[in-house]
């Protein structure tokens, strides 16, 4: 008895029992449990009262008999839906395929853009920003021209720098050469004087040897 009390049947077992559809063995076991378990007995009695209330519960009938009125209304609704559906389907069917349209438009747009870009680029490079097609591209051409001018200035500046450096180097080389030449001249003069002195000495010695053989 105590064992039965502790092992309450599963919740899903009660319904077939209440409907009289439980297997005989199960029905016997559940009936025995109800006798021994006051909690389950109270619970199931409550369920039975609720079932009775639910079965007796009256819901208000519809405000009007719908059968006769509903069909014409539904018929018109369905007719409208069918007309819209047919229109949509025909529209879809008669229209060219989206893929084809897309490809055609893309090719056309690409060609136009390429042509426009080429002419604009040429105009921009020719330094004529006014001949390009639209504002945006004119702006690009203007910027391109500015970049070109800037590049030329930079080149000129760089060239001037190089020339300046070359000039400075030439000046330095000239001064250095001049100094070297002066040094050389000076050295040559000293040596010439020394040679001259040596020659005069040799001449003097030669005269002395002739006078005193």
């Amino acid at each position, binding site marked *: 008895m105590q064992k039965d009390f502790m092992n309450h049947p599963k919740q899903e077992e009660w319904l077939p029992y209440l409907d009289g559809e439980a297997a005989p063995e199960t029905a016997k076991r559940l009936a025995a449990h109800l006798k021994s378990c006051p909690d389950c007995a109270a619970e199931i009695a409550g369920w039975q*009262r609720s079932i009775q209330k639910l079965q007796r519960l009256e819901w208000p009938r519809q405000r009007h008999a719908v059968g006769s009125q509903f069909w014409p209304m539904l018929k018109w609704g369905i007719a409208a839906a069918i007309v819209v559906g047919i229109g949509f389907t025909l529209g879809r069917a008669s229209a060219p395929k989206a893929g084809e349209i897309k490809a055609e438009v893309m090719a056309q747009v690409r060609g136009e853009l390429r042509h426009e870009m080429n002419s604009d680029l040429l105009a921009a490079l020719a330094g004529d920003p006014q001949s390009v097609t639209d504002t945006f591209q004119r702006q690009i051409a203007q910027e391109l021209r500015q970049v070109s001018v800037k590049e030329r200035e930079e080149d000129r500046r760089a060239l001037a720098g190089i020339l300046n450096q070359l000039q400075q180097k030439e000046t330095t080389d000239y001064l250095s050469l001049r100094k070297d030449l002066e040094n050389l001249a000076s050295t040559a003069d000293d040596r010439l004087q020394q040679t001259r002195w040596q020659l005069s000495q040799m001449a003097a010695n030669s005269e002395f040897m002739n006078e005193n053989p």
Partner: protein
Amino acid sequence: MFSVTDEQAMWNVQMKDDHQAFARLVERWEEPIFRLCARMMGDTHQAEDLKQETFARVYLHRKEFRLESKFSTWLWRIALNLCYGELRKRKRHGECPLDDSQSDDTHPVREFAALEPSPDRQAVVQEENEIVRQAMGRLPETGRTVLALRYGEGLKLREIAEILEISETTVCYRIGVALAQITRILEPRLTERKGAGP
């Protein structure tokens, strides 16, 4: 007299766009579908709209009905799915199922009871009905569905299992849970009413 089955009528609707056959189906099923929607929504206005929506869908999707299946199962499913959709919308808009803490007169179930009184019924029965309707409104969707199908429409456990696409054991479990819940709501209310009665 030979009576056309639902499936035969539906075959005529599906194959021949037979409006008369469809009208017969509507006539046969509009009341049960209305009742189910009313139980699920607790509101006759919405139930009426959902019933019409159900039959509109049946007609528009008539080609999808498989003739080897049962028409009523398909019909119940359509109606239930529409009810679930409406209940979800209601939840999103912050409307809650009936609760004791809410006592305003605009609540669907209260509105339902107030709009549709049964003048020829005794006051006690009316009051009891209202208590039971309110209790139904407080159950979760799953519980409300199985109780509406089992005790409202008297469907067999096997039929409910088929409609909800669950096992019979699960149906029994859900009904058990729902019965336990509604009993806990109903018993104190009904005891209190008896205590306050003459």
